[in-house]
């Protein structure tokens, strides 16, 4: 599997002038042992994100986006889950090889994650102020009082009303969106080099969402952070992302700079996704949806995992796994930063 | 054990440490179990004392003389002795003490020892506040009138309840005196009783008789649930100078300490026996009762269960009562006799399969031998023995119930060395003390053995002045109750063992009450 060609794009300079991406995931495989068999949740994911850059990860629900993120953070449920193959390079070091104590030091100040499910991700028995302040107390040795002041400040930043009076409330006393914002605040607390945001704004209304995304963007600019944004909201993606990776069945099936993807998807799955977005003129009609069921990760279909659902599937799709390869213009010029794992990517691209 | 030479060779001083359980009282007014009595007797000296082998030893009494009818006793008291607070010990102080015990307000558990003194009833029921039968003729003469003839009354006076008390004693419920009695004994207390912790005695240097050698005696109060184990461990770790041992540990302890001369033993005035409910089937006939006695192999139980450290009994009265003791008076006790047992069972209508309740009180270490006896009764007579263990109070209630049948384990130790002290309470009709209303046996004769002939023999014996003749009557009575009628089934005698720190002290012996002879112990 060759990937170098697509991930090789101009890295932006980080403060200290560090070369290369903040994070690079190479050929990551994650599997879960279950009673029915081994669930191959991630099957060779490659992506990278540089400082100041936003990578949006889109994809089928259940395609392994969160699992990849968890693998990066080192919080997979293991057993039953384990990284069976691959490397995760963070600022050049393969963190899978680091001892746990080293890895711990990265979490928080260097990399942070916003969890998908905010309620279960917040400890129910500690006040949100405590959980936020903990970041400062543990990592910066701040006093209780200062940490609390910081927590309030953070809560205000993510637009939680009456932050001062609610800092001592417990997670269950907040609405879904507020919890999500608290998770966001927690991730932002130490201004890490990399934030993995797993569907950070699903529970937010659009105004707050806009504010929060603006905040993320500001911070990103200010501190030159790398951001991995896992989301289903193509609107948000369009707003903030620099490049997009589309996942399907544990694999990246397409990768592209933001504008290009919307215009010309090079994978039938991406096409299907874009077509599924509700549009005004469709009111009263059925929405388009990709037919069929998502693959069972216990026994992924042979060949291209998407083949049973692909309207353009050919025989080769059922036998051969398509690699993520660069996409070219009709004239053969390679499109920078673009790749697709489809045997017929060119046909798809050029319609 | 123990040599005969008195404390002459020993030196004075030293602290003697031993363990007791929390006594009910240490004031003679209510001191009742051996733990209370050991302290009361150290603090008070009465007219007489009893030697380990049941002999009367004069203390403050210079003489004690009965009248010819045995109803009046006159005691001459040694002059010039004092209580530790300086009050004189005179006849008056005895009258005071005895009256204090018997007064209604004291509700003393031990006042019954004085029940035969004239005027007891009135005093005890509160009708009078004087003890009519007692007169302090002069400072050194005490006259005691009895309501019935009793030529052995003098032996009773060795009990601590007959102690003199000073004026400060006040009434029986005087708390200050109860906790720190002021006596005339070889020892005194300089600090009150630390309940559940300790009692400390110091030598009374003004003692009017032979002074004690020990400077101090420390009685640590141990809990009754584990007392003997704690004493034993305390001895092993050098914290006690005198200790009991749990029965199962005896053999090992003996093997270790006997060679070092730290082991003493003694036969005591007590008996372990089976109470047999005489008035209810199946034991309402002597034959059935004899069958039981014959069926028991005392020898085997003593060997197997008690590791040979008890002695089978063949009489009801203890051997220490030399003048009345008759070994083998209970013929059925001498040896297990299966054939006889069956024969008597047949005669007595005790068929195999008969249900026999066998009661005992739990948690007191009786479980083992009781099972052994039960097994023998099953094996020999085919009885269906139902072991019925109960906590003490419930056990007692069952025994008192008129309807109860079967067997009951019981034990008795003497208060003073008289045959009467065994036979009247345990075998006489008055000893039953049946409450007419409820039919409850309120006395100690809960087996309800009752034979008018036996009762008469006791009364006669008590009123017999001549020692030999009296002894003969008691012997006759015992034979009637224990052999002919088999009113009770003697099992084994009371034998006691102690560890003593003979490396440091000499003359540690057990007295009549199985307590250390504090007044005689001296440093080596």
């Amino acid at each position, binding site marked *: 599997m060759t990937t170098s060609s697509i991930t090789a794009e101009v890295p932006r300079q980080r403060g200290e002038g560090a070369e290369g991406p903040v994070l690079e995931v190479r050929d990551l495989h994650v599997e879960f042992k279950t009673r029915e068999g081994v669930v191959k949740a991630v099957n060779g994911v490659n992506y990278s994100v540089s400082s100041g850059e936003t990578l949006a990860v889109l994809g089928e629900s259940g395609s392994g986006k969160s699992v990849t993120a*968890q693998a990066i*953070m*080192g*919080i997979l*449920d293991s057993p039953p889950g384990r990284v069976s193959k691959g490397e995760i390079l963070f600022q050049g070091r393969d963190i899978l090889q680091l001892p746990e104590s080293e890895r*711990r*030091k990265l*979490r*928080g100040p260097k990399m*942070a*994650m916003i969890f998908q*499910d905010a309620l*279960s*991700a917040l*400890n*129910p*028995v*500690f006040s949100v102020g405590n959980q936020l302040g*903990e*970041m400062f107390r*543990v990592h910066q040795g701040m006093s209780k009082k200062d940490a609390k002041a910081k927590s309030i400040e953070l809560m205000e930043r993510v637009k939680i009303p009456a932050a001062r009076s609610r800092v001592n409330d*417990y997670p*269950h006393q907040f609405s879904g969106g507020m919890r999500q914002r608290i*998770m966001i605040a*927690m991730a932002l607390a130490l201004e890490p080099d990399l934030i993995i945001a797993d569907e950070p704004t699903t529970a937010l209304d659009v105004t707050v969402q806009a504010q929060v995304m603006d905040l993320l963007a500001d911070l990103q600019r200010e501190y030159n952070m790398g951001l991995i944004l896992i989301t289903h909201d193509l609107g948000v993606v369009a707003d903030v992302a620099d490049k997009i990776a589309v996942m399907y069945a544990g694999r990246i099936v397409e990768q592209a700079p933001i504008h290009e993807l919307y215009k010309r998807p090079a994978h039938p799955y991406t096409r299907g996704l874009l077509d599924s977005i509700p549009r005004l003129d469709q009111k009263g009609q059925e929405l388009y949806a990709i037919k069929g069921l998502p693959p069972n990760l216990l026994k992924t279909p042979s060949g291209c995992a998407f083949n049973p659902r692909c309207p353009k599937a050919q025989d080769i799709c059922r036998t051969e796994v398509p690699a993520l390869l660069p996409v070219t213009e009709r004239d053969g010029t390679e499109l920078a930063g673009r790749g697709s794992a489809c045997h017929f990517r060119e046909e798809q691209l050029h319609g | 054990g123990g040599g005969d030479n008195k404390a002459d060779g020993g030196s004075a001083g030293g602290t003697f440490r031993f363990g007791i359980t929390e006594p*009910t009282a240490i004031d003679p007014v209510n001191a*009742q*179990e051996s733990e209370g009595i050991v302290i009361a007797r150290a603090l008070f000296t009465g007219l007489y004392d009893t030697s380990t082998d049941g002999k009367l030893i004069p203390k403050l009494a210079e003489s004690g003389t009965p009248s010819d009818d045995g109803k009046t006793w006159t005691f001459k008291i040694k002059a010039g002795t004092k209580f530790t607070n300086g009050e004189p010990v005179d006849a008056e102080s005895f009258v005071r003490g005895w009256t204090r015990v018997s007064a209604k307000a004291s*509700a003393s*558990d031990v*006042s*019954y020892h004085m*029940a035969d003194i004239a005027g007891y009833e009135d005093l*005890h029921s509160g009708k009078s506040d004087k003890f009519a039968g007692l007169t302090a003729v002069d400072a050194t003469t005490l006259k005691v009138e009895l309501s019935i003839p009793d030529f052995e009354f003098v032996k009773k006076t060795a009990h601590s309840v007959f102690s003199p008390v000073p004026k400060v004693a006040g009434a029986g*419920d005087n*708390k200050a005196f109860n906790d720190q009695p002021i006596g005339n004994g070889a020892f005194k207390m300089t600090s009150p009783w630390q*309940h*559940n*912790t300790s009692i400390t005695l110091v030598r009374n240097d003004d003692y009017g008789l032979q002074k004690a050698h020990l400077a101090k005696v420390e009685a640590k109060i*141990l*809990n009754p*649930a584990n007392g003997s184990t*704690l004493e034993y*461990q*305390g001895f092993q*770790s*050098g914290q006690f100078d005198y200790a009991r041992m749990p029965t199962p540990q005896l053999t090992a302890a003996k093997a270790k300490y006997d060679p070092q001369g730290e082991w003493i033993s003694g036969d005591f005035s007590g008996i372990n026996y089976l109470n047999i409910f005489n008035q209810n089937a199946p034991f309402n006939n002597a034959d059935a009762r004899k069958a039981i006695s014959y069926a028991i192999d005392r020898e085997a139980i003593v060997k197997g269960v008690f590791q040979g450290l008890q002695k089978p009994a063949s009489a009801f009265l203890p051997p220490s009562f030399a003048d009345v003791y008759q070994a083998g008076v209970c013929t059925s006790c001498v040896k297990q006799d299966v054939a006889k047992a069956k024969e008597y069972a047949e005669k007595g209508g005790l068929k195999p399969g008969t249900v026999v309740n066998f009661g005992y009180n739990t*948690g007191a270490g009786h479980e083992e031998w009781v099972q052994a006896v039960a097994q023998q009764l099953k094996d020999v007579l085919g009885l269906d023995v139902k072991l019925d263990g109960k906590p003490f*109070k*419930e*056990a*007692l*209630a069952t025994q*008192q119930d008129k309807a109860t049948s079967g067997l009951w384990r*019981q034990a*008795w130790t003497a208060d003073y060395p008289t045959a009467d002290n065994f036979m009247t309470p345990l075998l006489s009709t008055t000893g039953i003390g049946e*409450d007419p209303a409820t039919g409850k046996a*309120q*006395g*100690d004769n809960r087996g309800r053995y009752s034979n008018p002939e036996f009762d008469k023999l006791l009364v006669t014996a008590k009123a017999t002045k001549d020692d030999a003749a009296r002894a003969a009557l008691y012997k006759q009575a015992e034979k009637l109750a224990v052999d002919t009628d088999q009113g009770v089934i003697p099992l084994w005698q009371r034998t006691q063992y102690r560890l003593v720190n003979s490396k440091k002290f000499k003359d540690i012996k057990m007295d009549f009450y199985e307590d250390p002879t504090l007044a005689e112990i001296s440093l080596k």
Partner: protein
Amino acid sequence: MGRYVIRRLGQMVVVLFGATVVLFCCLFVLPGDPVGSLGGDKARDPAVVEQLRERYGLNDPLPVQYGNFVKNLAQGDLGEDFTQRRPVTEILQPKLVNTAELAITAIVIDIVIGLLAGLVAALFRYSFWDVLITLLTTMAVGFPSFVIGMVLQKAFVVELPWFPLISDGTVNSLILPAFTLAILDAALVARLMRGTMLEVLRADYVKTAIAKGLPRRTVLFKHVMRNSIIPVVTYLGISFGTLLGGALITEAIFNWDGIGLALVQAVQQQNNPIIIGVVSFGVAVFVLLNLIVDLLYAVLDPRIRLA
């Protein structure tokens, strides 16, 4: 919340009422006369028995006896015991102090050993350490406290005289009995801790805590512990109450003059005033402890609503 506490304390009165009524009835149905005999096998003089019955009002009908008890209790008077005839409060007071000393030491040992062992067992589930702890905890239950106590006593009092046989009032004399007393509950605490912790260890918020880069010890002792400790706290509350009720066997072995022995003896002697005194105390202890535990729930887990 203030009202909640007051209400619960009010319930204490009801519980006290309930417990003592039941107790009175039980004592009443027990065969045997509480003042009918002496310590040994000897029966008491019927005249004395009658005197005592009168003195303690034992001839009154049960409701009258109960009424008198309540009247006296209201004045803080628990009456006089039947053997030594001393005020029950005076007899029990030093015993309560002794028992409390022992109970507090024991509960501290419980907490330290129990929580640590449970933590280790849960963290390293099915490892050598877990199995070892399981083995040790089962031994703590399999070998009864008299065995453990007597072995300890033999070893550390008789053979190696490190500790006094009889309490000398120092901390030293507390250690062995407290340990003997604690070991069973510590084992149970460990098992409870292990059971509940396993549940919590996999929770999402634990992942969050790890992802925050918290040190392992913070993750465990703060995030995991707090969420798994409620049953443990419950049990500790019960255990502490039970400890305060005294422990017969340990007290017997180490000659600890505490409530447990006093109660058993009192029951055997039907020394009712002592029994009633101990039980009344026990009721107060349990109601208070369970109240504290319930209040602790609200502190430990804010989702719990008290009402």
